[in-house]
């Protein structure tokens, strides 16, 4: 392996995905280095969610490969280097290293905030419940919700729920973190608290891929911004350059619409 490849957190090669006759991803190639923060921008329906879901195989791509820290997602390498499809259990292990935050939070309503965070530690990492809860409490602390640990999701605001969801993802100590429009389902006055948590994560050297419509957040936080349109990556550049000197007409038009 070259030094360059060893630095890659995510490597996406020629990813295709269709729903029936609708081709949503038409060959996506993207590499993310360790510790890099990437924002994915694009109009509604351009395939941002589809791309993120193909990375952790919540959706199975039609073709193409995704590697996380060099490991092909959905496959196992045989001793001779050949790939064969991973079974459910191996895929689950791979997914446990890929953090995912959903637009709709998807907290489990029958568990307290604390147990939402602790559950995966118990079930997936086979920790004792006591120890898992201790760690969960620390994670809730990191997102500013320690005192809310014994509340059920239905009594939390959207912003709080999303922060619990982030804590739940953090507890697994994933190699990479994927965020699918984490603030799009929130009341405007609740967006800031989630943005703050994500900015904090970005400064701590985490590898993050964030689909978002929050232009200012992308501008301030992303190392690189990626513009997806019509199933392909139209343009990508360091965030400052991306926003200040967009090259393609399509991105110029998109930014004009979004920033006006």
């Amino acid at each position: 392996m070259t030094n360059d490849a060893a630095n890659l957190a995510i490597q996406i090669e020629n990813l295709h995905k269709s729903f029936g006759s609708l081709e949503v991803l038409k060959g996506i190639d993207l590499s993310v280095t360790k510790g890099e923060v990437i924002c994915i921008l694009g109009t509604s329906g351009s395939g941002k969610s589809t791309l993120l879901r193909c990375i952790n195989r919540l959706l199975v791509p039609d073709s193409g490969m995704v590697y996380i820290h060099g490991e092909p997602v959905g496959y196992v390498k045989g001793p001779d280097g050949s790939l064969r499809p991973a079974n459910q259990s191996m895929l689950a292990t791979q997914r446990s290293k890929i953090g995912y935050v959903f637009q709709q939070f998807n907290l489990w309503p029958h568990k307290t905030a604390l147990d939402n965070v602790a559950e995966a530690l118990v079930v997936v990492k086979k920790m004792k419940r006591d120890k898992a809860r201790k760690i969960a409490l620390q994670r809730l602390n990191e997102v500013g919700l320690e005192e809310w640990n014994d509340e059920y999701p239905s009594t939390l605001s959207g912003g709080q729920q999303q922060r619990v969801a982030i804590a739940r993802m953090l507890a697994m100590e994933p190699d990479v973190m994927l965020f699918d429009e984490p603030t799009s389902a929130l009341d405007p006055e609740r967006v800031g608290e989630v943005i703050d948590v994500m900015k904090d994560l970005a400064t701590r050297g985490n590898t993050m891929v964030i689909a978002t419509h929050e232009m200012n957040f992308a501008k301030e936080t992303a190392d690189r911004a990626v513009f997806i349109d019509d199933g392909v990556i139209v343009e990508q550049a360091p965030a400052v350059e991306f926003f200040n000197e967009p090259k393609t007409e399509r991105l110029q038009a998109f930014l004009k619409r979004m920033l006006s």
Partner: protein
Amino acid sequence: MEFEFRFDIVWNNISILLEGVQTTIMLSLLTMLLGTIIGLFVAIIRLRVRRLFAIPFVIYVEVFRGTPGLIQIVWIYYCLPIVTGLELSAFTSLVIAMALNVGAYLSEVFRAGIQAVDKGHVEAACALGFKPTQISRRIVVPQAAYRMIPAIGNVFVSAIKLSSLCSVLGMSELMYQGQLVIANYFRPIEVFTVVALIYLIMAYSTSLFMMFLEWKFAWVKRDKNSFWGHFKNVSRTIFSLKPQGDLTRD
């Protein structure tokens, strides 16, 4: 001539009715138990296997939901021993007949409950590295089970009333015992009124018990949730007065 209510006659024969209550309770409880097992079995099969293999179970459910309970009971009572060649007591045959009826309804409750679990909750578990069986056990079933409690309660209440049909086959449960008293004293109004009240008490106790379960396992912090508060909340929804924020539902 003026009609005079003679509830004293019922009162004097209350022990006859209470004997029937015992049988009714036994019939109902066993029916609920066996019906739950059948319902779970059928629901799981219908959720797991491909559509073609589920067809016999679909037919079973539709037949038992779509035909009169009385005919089901009579038919099974006479035919089950013939078909199976077993010598079954009347009690056993009747429990099996009613359990098949209750199981048909419950399987639909279970199936709908499982299917109603938000796909996002499953995806969240999946993304964290849960395996499919862990997702069922930890996320889907506990959530679905809680949400099913009221619907299961409805089926259980109808099971109690269903058991009254067993009187037709000479099972000495509450309805039969009531008719016995009527035959002796020709006082159908009074006897039926009291019998109905006893059914009502049994049915309402079942509802209360289900409400208690709902409260006990509610997804709310204990100190925010008294049973009385929960009771008022549920009653409000039943009488469809202005529903207050129900913390157990999101």
